């Protein structure tokens, strides 16, 4: 990698405006810190061993993520350089070589048609009356890294906000928007995505970050969902009380697991002490009975 990021060490809670993706994801806290994606990995049904392994063996880049990264770059105006590869797909050796070279250089590879799409997406965001304001250049700073210590567990926590606004709303709230690309941004799909990817945990986590660091007493966390396909419709949503409460509970749960495993220096996998008993899921049981 050319952009050999300078290794940084973070020993003080605060907002760090200039960390690169790599530095942030590399966890610059000497004794380790927990991010919201780490928390998701730690929570049941996953055994803690998975998180423990994954943090030392980051996943290789994936095309879906590259697309998301490219969209983030153009919408937020920061992030690694895009390397546009003039090919219809990644099947040819030439395209794959270009992709490898892009990774090598620390860039994000995108296909030409994807790039055109991403440009369209960024444009749609700019023109959207709400999303455009949320990510208005100059009204906030993109990709801000927050580090703080959890009061209850003493665990270092970190969060990387897509956007940290400079100002608070007329209702005294710090509005933190988070940008997500998706296939469908309709209510139902968004609701399922929130549950599946535990976006409610992220919302809670980031709100806690802003509050812990004294950025604001009240935080309004908004998700800006945008469809990948034209016309790149945008749906700005806030989460309901139940989702947020559950999100906060999940974050507490993850912190407790993290603190416990760290203290014991033991990250258990699935139980080896007992042989698990597994049956069909409830829906399949019903089917079974009907066809029997």
């Amino acid at each position, binding site marked *: 990698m050319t952009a050999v990021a300078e*290794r940084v*060490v973070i020993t*003080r809670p605060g907002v760090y405006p200039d960390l690169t993706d790599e530095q942030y994801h590399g966890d610059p806290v000497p004794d380790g810190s927990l991010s919201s994606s780490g928390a998701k990995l730690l929570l049941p049904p996953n055994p803690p061993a998975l998180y423990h392994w994954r943090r030392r063996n980051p996943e290789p880049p994936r095309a879906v993520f590259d697309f998301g990264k490219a969209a983030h770059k153009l919408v937020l105006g920061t992030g690694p350089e895009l390397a546009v590869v003039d090919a219809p797909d990644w099947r040819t050796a030439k395209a794959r070589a270009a992709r490898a070279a892009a990774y090598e250089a620390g860039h994000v590879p995108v296909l030409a048609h994807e790039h055109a799409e991403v440009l369209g997406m960024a444009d749609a965001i700019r023109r959207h009356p709400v999303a455009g304001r949320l990510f208005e250049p100059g009204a906030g700073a993109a990709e801000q890294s927050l580090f703080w210590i959890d009061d209850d567990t003493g665990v270092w926590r970190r969060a990387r906000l897509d956007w940290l606004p400079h100002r608070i*709303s007329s209702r005294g*709230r710090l509005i933190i928007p988070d940008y997500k690309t998706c296939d469908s941004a309709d209510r139902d799909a968004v609701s399922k995505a929130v549950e599946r990817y535990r976006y409610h945990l992220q919302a809670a986590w980031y709100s806690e970050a802003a509050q812990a660091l*004294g950025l604001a007493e009240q935080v309004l966390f908004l998700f800006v969902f945008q469809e990948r396909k034209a016309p790149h419709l945008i749906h700005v949503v806030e989460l309901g009380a139940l989702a947020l409460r*559950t999100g906060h509970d999940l974050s507490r749960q993850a912190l407790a697991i993290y603190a416990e495993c760290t203290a014991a220096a033991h990250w258990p996998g699935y139980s080896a002490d007992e042989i698990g008993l597994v049956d069909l899921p409830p829906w399949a049981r019903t089917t079974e009975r009907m066809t029997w």
Partner: protein
Amino acid sequence: MSTTLDLAPPAVPVAPRISQGTTIEQSRAVAEVQAAAIMARQFPRDEQRAIRTMQEACARPSLAKIAFYRYRRGGEVVTGPTVKLLQELARIWGNVAFGIHELSIDHTVGESEMLAYAWDLEGNTRSSQTTIVQHVRDKNVDGTKVAERLVDRRDVYEANTNNAARRLREALRRVLPGWFVEEAEERCRHTLENPGDGLTLAQRVAKVLRGLENGFNVDRVRAEAHVGKPAGEWTAWDLAQLTITAESIKRGDLRVDEAFPLRATRAEVTGATTPAPAVQQAAPNTPAPVPVAAPEQPAAPTPAAPVAQQPAAPIEEPAPAAPPAPVTEDVPPPVDEPPAPEEPPARQQPAADTRPTGSALAATRQQVNRLAAQLSSLQVTSREARLDVLGTLIGHRLVSSNDLTRAEATTVIDLLERICAAPEPARALDQLLVEMTEAADTGTEGGA
């Protein structure tokens, strides 16, 4: 791997130790039950009287107010008569024995066995339920459960009674005649709608709005969103519902932001904004134990330094001699600068210590002035000495007062305030400094 524990023979049940007092209590309870049943036959309830008493009781706002519960489960609102109402009804109905008992409590395993029962002594209908109460606190309504183990005896006691009370509610509902309870609910609702306080509806609406504002910091807009129509159109029924909601919040069944969510609006996003959040605070440096827990920002909307770039230039007050030569860390990330001396070696890799940057981090001019004044009163007068003392108190070295963050300044000002109030301030400071230095030393060793 199996251990001897795994192979141990199944534990033989051991009879619990029963005291003489318990034995006496057991026979007394048997006798009491027999007596109660006989008494119930001899003095049957007067249903007409019970109905009249119930009607009078339910006409009292004090009972009506606590007659209903409401909470959210899986996004739905669950509501019904509270155990308090049902207990009152059981008392009025007469010849109903009810209660909760702690059958056993095991602090090691962390569970208790509770019994809730209601018994119509006349009709001989009895409903009882034993329940095992885990000594944990569920921090969730539904879905994912986050169980927190209860250690405090008082917490355990409360968890037990709360759980049992819920069972008691069900037991009482089964034993009391349905029509009796329904009429009582109806009357309580009526009382809530017409509390007979001599106020007009408009006055009561105003009163409720004031109550919400003062009690829960819920403004009119949120209250109207909750009810679903403007306050001018609220009915007595709406007010009754609000009362139930408010009581549920007070009991902790419902949270304010759940009952009255502050919905985001386009206007809020696109509308006017106020200067800036006090952009941040960064707490003291390095390994030391969490120093003075997350300081509450003194005042939320500090006008000071917006996020703009120009430093809020904390003054280098008197600063007689040499302007600080060393570069402050506020400027871009130092490239190959070795970590500050006190820093633990941290990782093997060469590491540049990144500090939070941005002018807003810096302590305000007022704070710096204040600190200077406090330190002067403690006979710490020279610039070096001041920086040295401050550095010790916050746990990292200061090159200039520019390095001091707002949060650190707040913490230290509070600390010095207390020291100044001590009988011998200078000595108190010396002692604190010695303690802090020692703590920092051990902290560094331990943190590596």
